[in-house]
């Protein structure tokens, strides 16, 4: 029965991911509201906790409009491509040591290949809409993806050199063996991947394909209702994918922070840090309970109490894992740490989005081709040199990377100086 578990996982992902995407949207709106001195959604459920469900119902019930002159087949087909590819990429993502649909030996390549196929959905959708705004958005998206996927791919290569494997599990294992997350050993690789992944998922400040103040909604302009929500789902699913890749490759995957710190709770064999997840969730649960009484309406009180109950259940599961067999314990806690890191990464996305203005198209291209790609190349060479140092002269894994990272820093400063911030709008006619 080797197929049962993967099939169960797949069903869980397809069922849970839309909900997760909805709650990432809620998180985004709440974070945005917090940064902008306002409250955000507060009406549907306590603190807007049911807002994603209300939105999903609204989107499902909306009228389905296909523009008169659109290419109907392509118009129908394009969002499906986007969302299918986004979901397919999850099959190789390892959420904790136990939770993975397929441990491919080319896992990373598979994820990259599949998720970059999603661009076809955007380009086809923009073309099929038969609208100028959509077409411009689609063209921008294609050019942007090609440019930034190169840089992000090169950034990943630096990690692959260190890990020596493409399998997601082996990459995490390598970080565990070497005792350091690759985000610390190749900070430039992490930085380039961060920028590249924002651009790949079309998030601000690189959200040019859907720049609302310029192109209304870019490639999605003519879409509405459920088709639109498929694009939306694909975008947020892609965010989770890139966050998952970054977590696996740079942030130690499911490894616990402070893996070498083994201080135990007195009288037990449980480590303090292992108890942290359960305590954190319990704290959230207590906070929710304290909010129950403040809810204005009875139904809101009930929902808030349910949320608190859910947190208690999670806390109990996390605490129960401490006394379970090591494999179970690692599976559950690994998933917790993995998700925590994914959400931290997504939080960084949101933070960046609400802080920076949007790049212009030519500036975006210049940043990609003149700064990120050369820097990524230098970074790869630097890591290569470090590995040679390690193998030939037996330098330590950290020590060997220090000089090369410093050299990369120098190159970055040189490139940044060259890439003058002053716009060349009036002089780029030849491009």
């Amino acid at each position, binding site marked *: 029965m080797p197929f049962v578990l993967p099939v169960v996982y797949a069903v869980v992902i397809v069922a849970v991911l839309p909900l997760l995407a909805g709650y990432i949207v809620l998180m985004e709106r709440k974070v945005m509201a917090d940064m902008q001195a306002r409250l955000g959604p507060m009406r549907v459920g306590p603190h807007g906790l049911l807002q994603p469900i209300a939105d999903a119902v609204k989107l499902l019930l909306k009228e389905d409009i296909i523009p008169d002159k659109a290419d109907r087949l392509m118009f129908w087909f394009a969002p499906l491509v986007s969302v299918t590819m986004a979901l397919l990429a999850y099959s190789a993502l390892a959420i904790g040591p136990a939770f993975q649909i397929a441990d491919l030996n080319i896992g990373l390549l598979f994820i990259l290949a599949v998720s970059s196929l999603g661009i076809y959905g955007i380009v086809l959708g923009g073309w099929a809409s038969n609208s100028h705004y959509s077409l411009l958005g689609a063209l921008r998206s294609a050019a942007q993806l090609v440019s930034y996927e190169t840089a992000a791919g090169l950034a990943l290569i630096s990690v692959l050199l260190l890990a020596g494997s493409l399998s997601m599990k082996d990459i995490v294992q390598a970080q565990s063996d070497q005792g350091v997350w690759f985000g610390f050993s190749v900070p430039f690789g992490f930085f380039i991947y961060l920028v590249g992944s924002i651009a790949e998922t079309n998030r601000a400040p690189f959200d040019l394909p859907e720049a609302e103040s310029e*192109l209304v909604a870019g490639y999605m302009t003519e879409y509405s209702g459920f088709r639109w929500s498929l694009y939306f789902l694909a975008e947020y699913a892609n965010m989770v994918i890139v966050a998952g890749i970054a977590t696996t490759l740079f942030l130690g995957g499911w490894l616990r922070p402070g893996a070498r710190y083994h201080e135990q709770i007195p009288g037990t064999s449980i480590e303090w840090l292992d108890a942290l997840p359960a305590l954190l969730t319990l704290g959230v649960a207590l906070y929710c309970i304290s909010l129950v009484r403040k809810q204005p309406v009875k139904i809101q009180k009930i929902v808030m109490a349910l949320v608190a109950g859910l947190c208690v259940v999670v806390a109990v599961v996390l605490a129960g894992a401490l006394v379970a067999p090591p494999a179970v314990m690692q599976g559950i806690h690994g998933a917790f740490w993995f998700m925590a890191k994914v959400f931290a990464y997504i939080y960084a996305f949101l933070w960046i989005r609400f802080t920076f203005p*949007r790049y212009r198209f030519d500036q975006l291209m210049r940043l990609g081709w003149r700064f990120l790609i050369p820097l990524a190349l230098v970074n790869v060479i630097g890591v290569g040199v470090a590995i040679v140092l390690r193998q030939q002269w037996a330098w330590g894994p950290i020590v060997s990377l220090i000089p090369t990272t410093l050299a990369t820093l120098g190159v970055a400063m040189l490139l940044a100086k060259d890439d003058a911030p002053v716009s060349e709008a009036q002089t780029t006619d030849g491009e």
Partner: protein
Amino acid sequence: MDSVNTTVLGADEIILNMGPQHPSTHGVLRVKLKLDGERVAGSECIIGYLHRGVEKIAEHRSYQQFAPYVDRMDYVAAVSNGLGYCEAVEKLLGTEAPPRARVVRTILTELQRIASHLLWLGTHALDIGALTPVFYCFREREEILKIFEKYCGARLTTHAFRIGGLQYETYDGFEEDTKRFCNDFSKKIDEYETLLTENRIWVGRTKGVGILNAADAIALGVTGPVLRASGVKWDLRKAQPYAAYDQYEFDIPTRETGDTYDRYVVRMEEMRQSRRICLQAVENIPTGPIMARIGKVLKPPPGEVYHSIEAPKGELGYYIVSDGTTQPYRVRVRPPSFINLQAFDKMAKGSLIADVVAIIGTIDIVLGEVDR
């Protein structure tokens, strides 16, 4: 304006219709763009979607009755509009508002300038993709609107002034409210500047975009911050002082290049200067009557008058012809937004689509005023 030829297109050219329903045309401006890829090969502004015949209405209303209508032109700077109209009619009548009224008018008008610039800053930043400043700007604008509300009961279309002076005495605590706002506001401007002024992306998006040199600006009749950013030191508050501006010290910020960044810097500095004027004025409001003796029925002698003020967006002028009756024979408004919009085609040519929204934002137009 260059008309965009829609029948003869190059092989790579398309026509893109931006507006009147578009998120960043600030109302109902319609821009027809001829695009070569993403580059603007030609543009044409099409206006009139918000035309309400304000000038014609004036011919059928008494002088006082028309005063609330001017608030609806530049509805984000209603106080300034009212000031210009009231002073124009006062000039026609050959009278002047009493000193106390003039100082209060100055304070409210400068607060309105700050409010108008705040709205510009927020929406302009939003157009360029910075989502957050708009909320900070509205937070401070709210404080100003609260002062207006306490003073005259209205927030947006205030009708704060009357011909001959003021209808209402200032409320208790007016001075304190204004002072508190001004003192807090200094830090708030710094806060906006932290987010934008040296931000690499912001500088990249605004420097060198939509350049308008001084000669072109003068030839096109552009006024206000747009003109000053091009390096022309022209401000009616200094050039031909009205209200109580001759009593206060303030600087006229200018810049050289005349690009979008310069216009941003000029407006930011203008907010600081407005704050300075408010602080000076509120220290020493003269006592005395707030209304000149002009009677209930206004019958200006036959004749004509042109009076202009420095509204937040530029020179706001009223040309009024009287035929000796209680209703004006003709009122013609010189709205700054309308004239400044003429510069759009010149600024936009050769730029990218993304710059078009930056340029629309930087001109700071209000369509209610453009179309009237």
